[in-house]
């Protein structure tokens, strides 16, 4: 399986990454993808609040290892020809891409399932943390979501 994993501050080029994923392999019939973007507000307890920027911290070295392990686990469950995972770190503005997951397979169900699996496990096991900067200059760490733990747990039940 062709694997590309990157943790970087720079933006990525979606068209280039997709072309690179499937180039020259005519056994690929389906490419599923997920693109995560910085949203302009987030739920804090009962309140929505606007945010100004988002900073992503990570555990260098462990992030790459964790992403490789997640991708390998996906490749054991589904027939995949190629996977790309790119996760950005550092300070990001509203609307900027945070994460890209691309999965390529002969058929669409495998591509969709693997893409969701990688995102769900990444959300609970890859050591990234988000810190929001508010328009008034204040900062706060984002809390983990219970719904993310539940999304990851469903793959263990199957």
């Amino acid at each position, binding site marked *: 399986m062709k694997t590309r994993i990157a943790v970087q501050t720079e933006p990525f080029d979606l068209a280039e990454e997709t072309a690179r994923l499937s180039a020259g392999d005519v056994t690929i019939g389906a490419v599923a993808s997920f693109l*995560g973007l910085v949203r302009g507000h987030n739920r804090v307890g009962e309140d929505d609040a606007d945010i100004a920027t988002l900073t*992503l*911290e*990570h*555990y260098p*070295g*462990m992030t790459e*290892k*964790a992403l490789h392990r997640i991708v390998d686990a996906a490749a054991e469950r589904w027939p995949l020809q190629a996977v790309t995972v790119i*996760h950005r770190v550092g300070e990001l503005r509203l609307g900027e891409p*945070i*994460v890209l997951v691309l999965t390529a397979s002969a058929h669409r169900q495998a591509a969709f399932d693997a893409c969701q699996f990688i*995102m769900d496990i*990444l*959300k*609970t*096991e*890859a*050591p*990234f*943390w*988000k*810190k929001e900067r508010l328009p008034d200059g204040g900062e706060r*760490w*984002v*809390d*983990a*979501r219970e719904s993310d733990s539940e999304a990851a747990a469903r793959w263990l039940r199957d």
Partner: protein
Amino acid sequence: MIRVLYFARLRDRLGVAEEQLETFPPTLGALREQLAARGGDWGEAFSDRVLMAVNQEMAGPETPLADGDEVGFFPPVTGG
């Protein structure tokens, strides 16, 4: 000697990003208890949910520690 790293909210609360421990207990769980017993912010910080890694792999309290290990403590992750 082991290297201990703290990340994100946990690091901010403790005011420490990294330390080296010349002596260390035999397991990850015992190390966590030892750190929580330091008093001040440490007890409170470790009373929250804290994830643990040894040599950059997620690890549980039974995981043995050995000379040269890198240990990471951090809050639940929020990437993606």
